[in-house]
């Protein structure tokens, strides 16, 4: 069939977490790390960037003077087993930030992470990224925001260890970040994007 799409088998030599960090700290471009694979991050389009700025502005001003803070997309986050190093589009950390080493560039205890979907990243944000984020003990909420339409998916850790998946479409008008008790309206999230 003409249109068959088959995943290529990547040429694979395992990269260790320390090798990844050494390369990454010397690199001008950002790469994420998953189980020995290093994946280059591509640049983000306008709507993606607008949504990111809206998140920082709204959450940042709301958290001013509170014990949680919002961090931007250059803050790297690591899983406890060191099997993933990820740059969430935004991160909320509460209390004292715990960092992996004396370079102070890798956060271990995010409470909330955000990923803004673009067509090329959506599938993996929903797939293996979710799985790795779920391994981070401190993580309470993983919020995914669509940059193509007014839509968000929230995955929330429950007190008994279960996870709740919520699909929030435009009709809901807002998504709730329970950790900081903030209702973020879709109007605020999508300001300037035309969505």
């Amino acid at each position, binding site marked *: 069939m003409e249109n068959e799409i088959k995943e290529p088998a*990547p040429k694979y030599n395992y990269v260790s977490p320390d090798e990844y960090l050494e390369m990454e700290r010397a690199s001008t471009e950002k790469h994420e790390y998953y189980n020995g694979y290093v994946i280059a991050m591509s640049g983000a389009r306008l709507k993606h960037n607008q949504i990111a700025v809206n998140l920082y502005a709204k959450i940042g001003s709301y958290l001013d003077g509170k014990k949680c803070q919002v961090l931007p997309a250059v803050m790297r986050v690591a899983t406890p087993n060191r099997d993933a190093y990820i740059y969430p589009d935004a991160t909320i950390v509460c209390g004292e930030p715990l960092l992996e080493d004396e370079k102070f560039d890798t956060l271990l205890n995010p409470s909330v992470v955000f990923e803004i979907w673009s067509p090329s990243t959506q599938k993996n944000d929903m797939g293996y990224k979710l799985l790795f984020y779920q391994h981070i003990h401190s993580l309470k909420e993983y919020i995914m925001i669509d940059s193509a339409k007014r839509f968000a998916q929230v995955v929330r850790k429950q007190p008994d260890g279960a996870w709740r998946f*919520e*699909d929030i479409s435009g009709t809901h008008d807002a998504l709730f970040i329970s950790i900081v008790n903030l209702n973020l309206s879709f109007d605020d999230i999508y300001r300037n994007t035309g969505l």
Partner: protein
Amino acid sequence: MENEVKEPAPKYNYVSPEEYLEMERSSQEKHEYYKGEVYLMSGASPAHNDVAYNINRLIAPAVHGKGCKLYGSDFRIHIPENFLFTYPDFSIVCGKALTSDIYTDNLTNPSVIIEILSKSTKNYDRGMKFALYRSIKTLQEYILIDSTSVTVETYTRQNDDSWLLKEFKQLSNSFTISVIGVTLSLQDIYEDVNFD
């Protein structure tokens, strides 16, 4: 960097659902269809097949008296809300099996879908595919059974249409498929399964 993985740009000619179904009905292999693109579904490993065999022998007799049926991976389903066509490893239908008005050989009303995960499908089955399945209004439970480790995940629709994920990783654990009132232990599901 040596290990950089880049997504390939697919060669893209839009395929209509009708074209897909025409090709698919005479095809030897199974393909999934989503948004104008056709995806080959790969064959299953021995472990995948072993797990499937266990599910069949554990569940098929149990649904019989409850007005439900267990279908295997030959029954194509269609989701009109997002236009997906795919073959879940197992679907459970209660009451009459409804097929699409337009595409009459496709099931539209499963109550339970069970997918057996392999290394290559885990990402998709847990993520994007689950999101597409959530659009099925009749779907109450989505169950993922890993064929590479002892892991079962159950996703259950709640009253507010959110979904609750519970994970089971011990052979001594059990979980219940409430739609058919059947409780399965991981010991039984993974009996005689040799991980690849």
